[in-house]
């Protein structure tokens, strides 16, 4: 089973912190790969919150094609970090081209566009680059969004951290999500690695999504171009999150009602029974059957954890005002926030969504039986 660790901190921290947590949970993953998301960035990116950042892996030819493409669209590079990799290969990590993190200035003619339109265009561009890259096998793009960096690679997390030099000081963030892979499919496609990102929403999950096919069919038939990909059965968790918040206008308190709705008896008792039974019925194909622990971030930089209906996966949230960790195992938390009050650790159960909002002052538990903020 993959191991998950996420961190939300008032002050930017290095991604190495999360990697350290993955390392102590090593018993649970086989070091076959790591996915990393950094959001609410610190360092040089602090000054450019609006600038979309492209993260991905490019060959030299890929970079050339990317530059031509981006120039043509009117994007100018504002800032970049190229992760230099050691000349000597490291066992278990494939040799690839350049790991690129590049912030762009938006094209001038986008000035009058609203946020939604900008979001759609950024997402379209990401897909276009991905498509071009798949054609010639020279570009892999993980995200293209403001204030967001993503890195995914095959190999042991700790070795990868060293290999990519992730401890460099420009690289720090207030939100970090990291997943250590347990390989279940040998030909690893980086697009199938967590976390998954869509327009400011990001999730990572462990476990298996047994209801994947009906969910995928439902999402792909929403006529939303960004609902595609699905190399991994877990990618849909991010898209369901986006769907329920952006398309249906609900809050994070409703996400769990979409993926793991209350059963009839509980539903009847709920103060918003009518709304919820409509939601359950209309979103029926989005019901997951687990076993999954989902950790995700929202565009406002809230971090949350939710469990499947039977809580078949471990997960714990703990920390202290200013910094909170979300971890598959307690030892992960111990490694990163040893000085927290352990008695305050929370292991979310089958009805809970645990949220730490961007003020990072407390852990909020939102229970499915509670009243909702209705988008009505």
């Amino acid at each position, binding site marked *: *089973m993959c191991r998950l660790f996420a961190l939300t901190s008032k002050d930017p921290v290095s991604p190495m912190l999360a990697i350290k947590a993955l390392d102590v949970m090593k018993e649970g993953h086989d070091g076959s790969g790591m996915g990393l998301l950094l959001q609410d960035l610190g360092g040089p990116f602090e000054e450019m919150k609006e600038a979309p950042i492209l993260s991905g892996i490019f060959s030299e030819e890929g970079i050339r094609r990317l530059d031509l493409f981006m120039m043509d669209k009117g994007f100018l590079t504002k800032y970049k970090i190229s992760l230099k990799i050691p000349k000597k290969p490291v066992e278990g990590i494939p040799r690839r081209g350049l790991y690129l993190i590049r912030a762009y200035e938006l094209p001038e003619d986008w000035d009058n566009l609203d946020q939604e339109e900008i979001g759609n265009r950024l997402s379209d561009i990401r897909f276009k680059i991905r498509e071009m890259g798949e054609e010639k096998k020279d570009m892999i793009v993980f995200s293209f969004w403001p204030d967001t960096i993503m890195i995914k690679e095959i190999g042991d997390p700790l070795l990868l951290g060293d290999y990519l030099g992730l401890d460099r000081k420009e690289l720090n963030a207030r939100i970090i999500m990291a997943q250590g892979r*347990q390989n*279940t499919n040998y030909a690893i496609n980086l697009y199938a690695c967590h976390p998954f990102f869509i327009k400011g929403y990001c999730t990572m999950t*462990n*476990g*298996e999504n*047994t*209801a*994947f*096919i*009906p969910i995928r*069919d*439902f999402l792909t*038939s*929403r*006529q939303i171009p960004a609902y595609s990909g699905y190399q991994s059965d877990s990618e849909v968790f991010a898209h369901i999150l986006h*769907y329920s918040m952006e*398309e*249906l*206008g609900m809050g994070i308190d409703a996400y769990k009602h979409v993926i*793991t*709705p209350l*059963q*009839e008896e509980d539903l009847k008792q709920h103060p918003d029974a009518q*709304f919820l039974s*409509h*939601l359950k*019925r*209309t*979103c*029926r*194909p989005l*019901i997951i*059957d*687990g*076993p999954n622990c989902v950790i995700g971030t929202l565009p406002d930089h809230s971090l949350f954890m939710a469990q499947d*209906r*039977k809580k*078949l996966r471990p997960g714990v949230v703990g920390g202290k005002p200013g910094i909170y960790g979300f971890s598959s195992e307690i030892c992960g938390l111990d490694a990163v926030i040893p000085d927290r009050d352990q008695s305050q650790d929370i292991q979310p159960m089958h009805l809970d969504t645990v949220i730490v909002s961007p003020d990072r002052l407390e852990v909020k538990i939102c229970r499915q039986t509670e009243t909702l903020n209705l*988008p*009505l």
Partner: protein
Amino acid sequence: MSSNRNLEPSSLSLNDLPWQIKYNNNRCTLCGQCTAVCPVKAIELKVFQKRTIKASIKKDAVPSNQYDSFYAIQQRTDVENACIGCAMCTMACPNDAIAPVKNPGLDRMKFHINQQGVPRRRGGRRNASGSILDRIKFTRISMLTDPALDAGRHEFEMRTLLGRVLSPRENMKRLREKGWIPPVRQIYPLIIGGMSFGALSPNMWEGLQMGVAYLNEEMGMPVRMCTGEGGCPPRLLRSRFLKYVILQVASGYFGWDEIIHAIPHMKEDPCAIEIKYGQGAKPGDGGLLMWHKVNKLIAAIRGVPQGVSLPSPPTHQTQYSIEESVAKMILSMSMAWGFRVPVYPKISASSTSLAVLNNLTRNDYASGLAIDGEDGGTGAAYSVSMDHMGHPIASCIRDNYLNLTKIGKQNEIPIFAGGGIGKNGNIAANAASLIMLGASGVQIGKYLMQAAAGCVGTEEDRCNVCNLGICPKGITSQDPRLYRRLDPENVAQRIVDLFVSFDTELKKIVAPLGRSTSLPIGMSDALGIDDHAIAKRLNINYVV
């Protein structure tokens, strides 16, 4: 028969009959129970003569004859009295002296079962035991990252929706604007398909109703039952149990006068209205209740004279096209109950089913589509329709579901599959396959008669005289001497057994696939079959 007697073309020998009686004279006590019980008078008590020749080895002894007469059972060979293999004689015989045996050779009676120019008609089934559904396996067992669920311990919600479900966005909009939201029922995915009061005996109907009420009220299983075309007993219409009933309207509109008049007195809305346009067993042919079965009670409920055959036209005569039917009938029915009751059509599976479905997608009042495949049963039909007309259910359901998926309405119009589910006894596996191919639920009829009432029909052309009012089990007869054999309480008990065991089996299928909190509609990645062409056609895995 003397060796030079004239033979009619349709004179048959025992060897020409589909079923032959094996009779053991040594065990028979001539009680007469078999001849009394035989629904087609296929056997009779006859006097036979036996000659014993007595010859001695002594030189001058004169041989002699001894003639004895004895009584025994004889099988008749005329077409109308041909044994139907029901084995009621076997059941009645206290000495195990008699049993029907299927003729392993060619049944020549088939060429003669059209006396007076009337082709064979029968009830029951298609008599084809092969089943694609039986060949489908559930191959995606959760093994690695996922511990399989425990069918006995975890919570399950095996329910389905009947009714038009709006898209999440549209539903949200209507909630916000307090607009009309179509009625949706949450029901059990195994539905008792339309079998009319008239086709079924009063005891069978009563048993069904009691079983359904028990399942709902004592077991918490929202099982629904469709009336078939034939109206509904007035007391039921005015009772709270109506909510468990799907009222069917078909082209003969039998019983609808009574229903319409009862609307103001209804304590509960019915679960739904099914508009029958077609039936899998006899696509394109109307319903038929033969005169034998139209007694006083049936005539009263249906609003017709007694003792006349009641054919329903193949089409709804008041309409020009299915589009119009869809638009008008669905709307009028919805209106009759103040838009509180789901209304959906039932059609026979066909290569044109998709066109019907496409029409429905554009009509907000259409609450679903029931599709009945070629293996569907019937109370009465021409054999030619049953044997040669129709479309297999699996590919039809799959095509329709994939079509909905293409336009994003797979959750909006539930498709219900009927026809041959459990025809070889594998009801839960067949139902689960259809659900994973895209059905929201399945309708059963014959299985229920077999399991809950002891119908002796099989896919071997056994019995199948449901049309004649002589059902030996009293299931499809209106003759009190026959239907009193069926105790409604026992039927009810068996209905409950059937549903409860089905529920366990369904869980035993979905739990290892890692599913429990919602019905795995369209979970086609779980399915595999050992035939490449079928796998390709159904868009499921090919496994060998």
